[in-house]
């Protein structure tokens, strides 16, 4: 495996990084940001949408701050897992990502912006040539989607990153910077359903950090991850359920988010509100789990068949909710 040649830029400040990006944009040069590189570089080795320029964020110091309410995009996943200041569930989820070696390199920003995956897509160039390419990387052929043929309008590759659901449930705000402007938005609004673009980032923009609201410590909950092996594997399904407890012990607020099921993570506010209305303990959890199962529409492009993943969403939701039923 060899990466196609590219020019590597190593800015030492955020400003420099953004001006580099601006310059490249102006000269119509395509580029990628690289943080930990644990996902981008394997994709480059497979010649998946590789660009002629890569801007490394490794030397940008502004992006590594970590506190209870601020998580820099360049915080390494293992540092997040080991952190005593972040919400314990964020640390736990981070510790469930891939393997320790990947976590030591991989970053929060990289995990949030992880490219979507599909077994028709994450293959070598020769392999993809043998299926005459696919929609997500068509190499100029206008190739069809291989998962759902004859729908050349949307890529259905699967978003398989772990951090997003729990951060969405904690009410995280994501902060972006670009050559011309900076902007912020709730993490739930960051993602846009499309397996190729997947989020609102425009060319030249990057994620600088996430902030969490001040009430973050009041949220409790769990994240459940479905995978074949307890290391390395991407989530085949992931469910985060978080809640705030009212004075009587029943939940006063409830949020549910999923990953590994569609091209972007799912934030299931309607289902959570429905369950919270007339909260009834176990039966409410069952209803919630069933509602979340119905809400997700996985396709056949990962290790497990979609029917199984969908059924497991119900089980995972129940398990992630088990703390709700403890008195």
């Amino acid at each position, binding site marked *: 495996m060899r990466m196609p040649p590219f020019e590597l830029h190593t800015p030492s400040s955020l400003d420099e990084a953004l001006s580099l990006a601006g310059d490249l944009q102006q000269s119509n040069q395509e580029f990628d940001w690289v943080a930990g590189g644990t996902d981008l570089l394997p994709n480059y080795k497979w010649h998946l949408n590789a660009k002629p320029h890569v801007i490394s964020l490794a030397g940008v110091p502004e992006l590594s701050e970590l506190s209870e309410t601020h998580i820099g995009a360049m915080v390494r996943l293992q540092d997040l897992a080991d952190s005593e200041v972040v919400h314990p569930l964020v640390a736990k989820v981070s510790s469930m990502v891939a393997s320790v070696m990947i976590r030591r390199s991989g970053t929060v920003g990289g995990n949030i912006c992880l490219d979507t995956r599909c*077994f028709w897509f994450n293959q070598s160039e020769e392999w993809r040539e043998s299926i005459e390419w696919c929609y997500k990387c068509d190499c100029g052929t206008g190739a069809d989607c291989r998962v759902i043929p004859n729908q050349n309008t949307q890529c259905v590759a699967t978003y398989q990153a772990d951090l997003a659901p729990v951060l969405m449930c904690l009410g995280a705000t994501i902060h972006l910077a670009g050559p011309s402007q900076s902007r912020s938005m709730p993490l739930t609004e960051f993602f846009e359903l499309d397996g190729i673009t997947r989020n609102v980032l425009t060319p030249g923009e990057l994620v600088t950090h996430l902030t969490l609201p001040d009430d973050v410590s009041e949220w409790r909950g769990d994240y459940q991850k*479905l995978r074949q092996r*307890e*290391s390395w594997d991407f989530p085949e399904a992931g469910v985060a359920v978080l809640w705030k407890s009212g004075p009587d012990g029943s939940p006063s607020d409830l949020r549910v988010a999923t990953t590994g099921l569609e091209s972007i993570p799912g934030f299931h506010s309607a289902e959570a509100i429905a369950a919270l209305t007339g909260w009834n303990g176990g039966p409410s959890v069952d209803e919630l789990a069933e509602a979340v199962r119905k809400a997700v529409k996985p396709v056949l492009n990962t*290790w*497990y068949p979609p029917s*199984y993943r969908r059924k497991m969403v119900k089980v995972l939701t129940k398990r992630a909710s088990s703390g709700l039923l403890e008195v």
Partner: protein
Amino acid sequence: MSEDKDRVEGYRQQSGKLPFSRPGSGGSRKMSEPRDEDKIANIRGNGGHKHDDVVTGSAVGRPTALIDGRWKVTGQAQYGDDVRLPGELVGRIVRSKHHYARVLSIDVSAATELPGVVAVATGQDASGRFGVLPVTKDEHAMAQEKVRHVGDLIACVAATDEATAREAVRLVEVEYEELEAVHDMRQGLENSEEPIHDRGKYHIGASNVQKRVFQEFGDIEGMSANAVVSHNSNWLFAGANHGFTEPHAVVANWDPSGRLTLYTPQQVPHYVHRALADVLDIPMHQINVHRTFVGGGFGGKSDPFPHEMCAAILSRKTGRPVRINFDREEVFWVNRGRHPSRIGMNLHADSKGRLCGIETDALIDGGAFASFGHVTTYYNGVLHTAPYEIGAFHYTGARVWTNKPASGAMRGHGAVNSRCAVEVGMDDLAEQLNVDPITLRLANLLPPHSATITGFRVTSIGMRECLERVRQASGWDDKFRKLPDGHGIGIGCGFFISGSGLPIHWEPNKFPHATVHLKIDMDGGVTVHTGAAEIGQGSDTVIAQSVAEVLGLPLDMIRIRSRETDTSPVDLGSYSSRVTFMNANAAISAAMEIRQELLEAAAAATDAPIERLVIGDRRIYRKDDPAVGVSYLEALHKAQEDKGALVSSGAYRTPPMGRVHKGAGAGIAPAYSFSAYVAEVKVDIETGQTKVLKVWAAHDCGKALNPLSVKGQIIGSCHMGLGQVLSEEMKYGRNGHLINPDLLDYKIPTIHEMPEIVPIIVESNDSEGPFGAKEAGEGPLLPILPAVCNAVYDAVGIRTSELPITPDRVHRMIEARCKHEGVTPLDLSSPELHHSELQEVLEARASEHASRDAMRATDPDPSDYNNGALFGFDPEIPADEQDERWVVSVTPSSDYMESPRLAGSAWKHTERRHGGDS
């Protein structure tokens, strides 16, 4: 020097004339000491062994770190990809994009013109056919006319660097005519307009059947008639890849003297040596195959490979060394892994709890080439005719070509899948008979020194001890059918050849299976030349141990030269679990020759009668008066007086064995290993996820020459087998593409999935094995699959017939059971056992057989015992000679062909030469 002052009695050295005589090589003790009998490995076990007299207590039977371990852990071992030669070029291969196509034209002009490209080769550069088995040579270095799977070789390029080579591959233009591909192995049984290969007059109809086997032994008619319970299952086994660490890598160098050296991590240098001569059309003596360190083989590096030919062809064209390294994906294209299989398994038990019949129908998916498939087709049947005594054996097997990467030999070659089906069937029979499954097995074992229904000569059998020890160690009697729901325990057994009885390329009586040369010069170190391929399994170490043991030397005085075919005797390499048995035997006989010379020299030096002399740690001395003796070096130098270096050659060949029916040679071996494992699992009833908690693994390896590596082999086998049972699977997408040719999506278990393994070594002391040893490399893999499947049944009451048991499959079966019983998963109950009257009958028989077996194991000349005695026949005569209902047949009857089973339907075709075609 003080050493000279108190020199021992006997031959006197001339001081200063023998610079090698110093502590270390000569032995540090100046006086002989009586041998510590406790340090001498106890191999006497069952009534003595032919090698007892040459045991010195110096090396064998002790946990020994592998002698090449330091090379590996310090990074100094040179694997295929580490070889760097001056001026080398990088080769890359142009591969097929289509499953099946005719290659109409190949335009290499653009590639050739690319700066940095030195040569491009296509099928026209070498048209010679090759294949690992002489009867099924169906491979070429590169496509001759057709490509047969995605990834098949079309052309190759050599360039000054890798990037250029890869670019050149892109520039090769291939024009194809697509042909209709066969993906489903069942389709391979049917006639095809364009069979994947044409075997001329030997072609079977117009089908893609590459090999078919029909075998009937025993009371076929009575099989169902005598049965009170039967087990019927139809298994689907996914293909598995070896998943070795080191992808294939090869360097070919046509050197200035006109000889070719091929550096390759090969399990069988000799086969690639032969194939190179065929393909390159040069004599074998002009080729030196240099085996590098091998980063794992497991059967996946035992074929001669087309990329090895390509490197040699490119080197010949360019006059420069050419290196080809594989990406992991290419490893999956070349594959040779476990066959995807559809196995129908019926077992029948009679009212006395005897196995009155095994009916196996195995359709195996060979992919695009024959590889070892001829043998695999037999092994899927014949390797489950033991350890149980059976009333009938009916086997139909077929291997078909499909447009997939070729299947081949993989650890437990051909035996793994059907063994899993047999052992799960045994569990089901026990369930139906309401008896304990271990007791059922113990009451049906063949005794030591017996013949199976197919006529395999079985010598030592440690099966009973394996079963008894895992039963005890695992706490079986307190756990089986008694663990909480979702938690279960299961048993599985294994039986495997310890070295294939037939050499592939020659008659067993025309040339030895293994030859080992020894040379000892003045320094006293022993150089061992052997062609046994060290592939990480400890081959070099076990041969060094064997030589050290016989000569009474420390291990660091033995140096193994096993790398090059120029210096090593012809050897069949590392497959079929043959190295310890065959090469250690050859090494022992070579060492015994030198031992005799040393004893004679010592006798001359000490005036002691030779029969009174013994060899201890670097000393030879009178057993009854240890003060009288000479050091090893003194004896050596005395022996060298007239001829310089001592050299010897030892060889091993198998004794005549087996019967004479067609295919009788497949499965015969000079000895067989046995194993029994108990696995404890927890199944998540809601998700179907299976977690293996602990495995008790008893393996009969005859005698553990190196207990450390035997345990390593058991644990490694468990890991590999767990992969196949839990998660490893070559998945093919809807258009026939292999969708997971990488190690993220080909799910080899990680350390998290690995349970605690309790290895239990059972030593049955094989009368023909080296110091009593048998194999431990492949057999230990077999039992883990059924043990886990049976444990899953104990846990949740579902009987799997599809591997791997990924959570989605288990979940589907749990759902089906819930639906059937009208309950939710959490209310499912696990199975129960209430012993029937038969349990006592079986216990009594097992106990009776235990004493029978103990007697036979120690009897120096046991009487013949043929399969069938359990059914009332005279054990000394094959049952088919006593009762005409006991048949021996290797061709299907017209009755059978009226409703053949799946693989059996391969016999509906007529071989062309019998159909009037030529």
